[in-house]
């Protein structure tokens, strides 16, 4: 079990994360927040690439930094920017990383074949990676993270560059993997984790906002999400009054999905809140700032 205890991270005067307390057991955790919210900072702290300014992270009661090699032996990590040598083939690169992970040549040979098949790269295992598409590179990244059969798998934006088919395949793979290990995925794409995560972690204003199941998080907007049809002429006024989650054009009118906490109007249809609704609602200010 990983425990994040009172963790803060500061860079000079800038605070990236403050008072983060979390517990991770086996299963799949989705770290969901918009870009710049501190996801990567937290992920890098869990991967020992960054040290907390205060607080500590423990694995089974022991500080992960003090555990040193013993912790990294349990770890599989895919960074946001997956680096590789352009002139290496996937097989060559995985052999290189296998050596760093302490895997013997013989074991590595078997494992690499197995993993490249899993990520559908068997037929290009000896081709130079400089000719690979972004999706193919990302699949090599996923394969390398699994090389040492990690107990803790940390993936930072793992679906970047993958097409819808690859994303679906990847979700299946993660579901399988999360059965017997701890998987933490950071993403800002709700659909990547909505259906597979046991728990979602959301960070807002540098602090932990939610750590709960998708259902429980969605409960926070119970009886507050509606859909209704609005005339184009009324749309601007509607936007000003409510937090709009989505807008869809149909038969010359707009079907809008929005949030309202209070008395409902008759023509509004209450709908079951989705994780994306919570995401858009919670980060509405950051989205506006981002625009």
């Amino acid at each position: 079990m990983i425990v994040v205890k009172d963790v803060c991270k500061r860079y000079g005067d800038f605070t990236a994360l403050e008072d983060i307390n979390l517990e991770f057991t086996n299963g799949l955790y989705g770290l969901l927040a918009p870009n710049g919210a501190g996801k990567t900072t937290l992920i890098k702290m869990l991967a020992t690439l960054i040290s907390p300014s205060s607080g500590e992270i423990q694995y089974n009661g022991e500080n992960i930094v003090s555990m040193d090699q013993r912790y990294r032996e349990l770890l599989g990590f895919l960074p946001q920017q997956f680096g590789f040598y352009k002139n290496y083939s996937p097989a060559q690169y995985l052999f290189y990383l296998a050596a760093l992970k302490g895997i013997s040549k013989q074991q590595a040979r078997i494992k690499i074949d197995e993993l490249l098949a899993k990520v559908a790269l068997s037929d290009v295992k000896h081709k130079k990676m400089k000719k690979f598409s972004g999706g193919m590179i990302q699949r090599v990244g996923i394969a390398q993270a699994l090389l040492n059969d990690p107990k803790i798998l940390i993936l930072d934006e793992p679906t970047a560059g993958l097409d819808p088919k690859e994303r679906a395949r990847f979700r299946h793979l993660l579901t399988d993997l999360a059965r017997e290990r701890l998987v933490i995925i950071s993403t800002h794409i709700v659909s990547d984790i909505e259906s597979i995560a046991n728990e979602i972690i959301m960070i807002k204003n540098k602090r932990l906002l939610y750590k709960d199941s998708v259902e429980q998080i969605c409960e926070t907007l119970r009886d507050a999400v509606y859909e209704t049809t609005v005339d184009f002429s009324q749309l601007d006024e509607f936007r000003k009054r409510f937090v709009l989650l989505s807008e869809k054009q149909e038969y010359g009118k707009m079907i809008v999905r929005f949030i309202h906490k209070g008395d409902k109007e008759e023509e509004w249809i209450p709908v079951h809140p989705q994780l994306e609704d919570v995401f858009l609602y919670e980060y509405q200010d950051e989205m506006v700032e981002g625009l």
Partner: protein
Amino acid sequence: MRILWNEMKKILTWKSLLLLLIINCILYFFLIDFYIKHFPNGRPALDSYRIGIEMIDKYGPSMDDEEFKDFLKTYDAQVKEADQYLQSDPQAVEEGIDTYKKFMDYDWNNAPQEVWKIREQIFFEEKVNTFWELQERERLIEFHELKEMEPGGTTPAQKKQYAKLAKEGIFGNYPEIVITNFHDYISNVAVAILFSVVAVMSPMILRDRTRQIVPLQYTARKGRSLLKTKLLAGFLSTLLVVTSLLVIYMGLYSLNNTSMFFDVRINTFIGNESWYNPTFLQYILFTIGGIYLVGIAFGLAAMGFSTIVPNTLTLLGVQIPFVAGFLIFGLNRMITFPMNMWFPKWQMPVFFGLLLLSSLIFVWYVIRREKKMDIML
């Protein structure tokens, strides 16, 4: 071992070997080739070289006063040869230069063209060895006769060393052509090797950082101690590069055919008064050792900078002052004339010590820094 080998393979790629080849070809043809192709460089250099070999054959690695008498005898015999040559030349006889002494005492500054022609014929058309060699022998005799004369403006330490050499009967009276050629050759070889090491070692760690491979490396079992393995791989690669280049360059040097001078002690060469007195071969080995130390120091420093700087341009920029500083202040003191009395005795060991120590401290700092630093890539 596998990791070390992998890191070495990353350094010694065909691209870096090609870069090595280009650097060394350019520097060889601009700086080094001359000292192989043109050794001995014309005359009387050739005569100096030949007389040097003759002296070693006859007197061994040094010439004492008894042997010097024999040297004078050879000189006298050669003067007679020159006399005979001149007497056999009707033109020379007609002009009144029928002996070598007259030939030497002749007022050549005001010589008419017909007399100049005689001189040109002897030296440049017929290339009469006797006349060329006599000049060199006279120079050597002069040096031998002035052997105990101490140059002016010497420091107390230099005076002491001159006295010590004189007491031990060590004087500079053998032709210096071989050691001068070696000084020139080895300093340019050192420059080529230094540039090669810096060029090959510089990008090794930076490349992993710019390609964002470090997060993968540092989260693997090996972790941040990989930096030490990379440095070791760099160190071994430096040794490999320096050794390979030295094998090639010393192989080329062997074409100069100077092995007969190997047993001559360096103070025995004219104008080469030194703090220490190894044989020429020992001296060559010492300078090779010096090149290894300089190569290792600059290799370590290049890897250290590679760990810190943000990009290739900065990496090159930051090393230029260090390389230039070495070429200006270090090269002569450490490689070209490491034992020469022109420089204070303390300078060579202090320069080597400082160079090695500073690069080791730098690498130690880099390792310590990397252990705890946040990997922000």
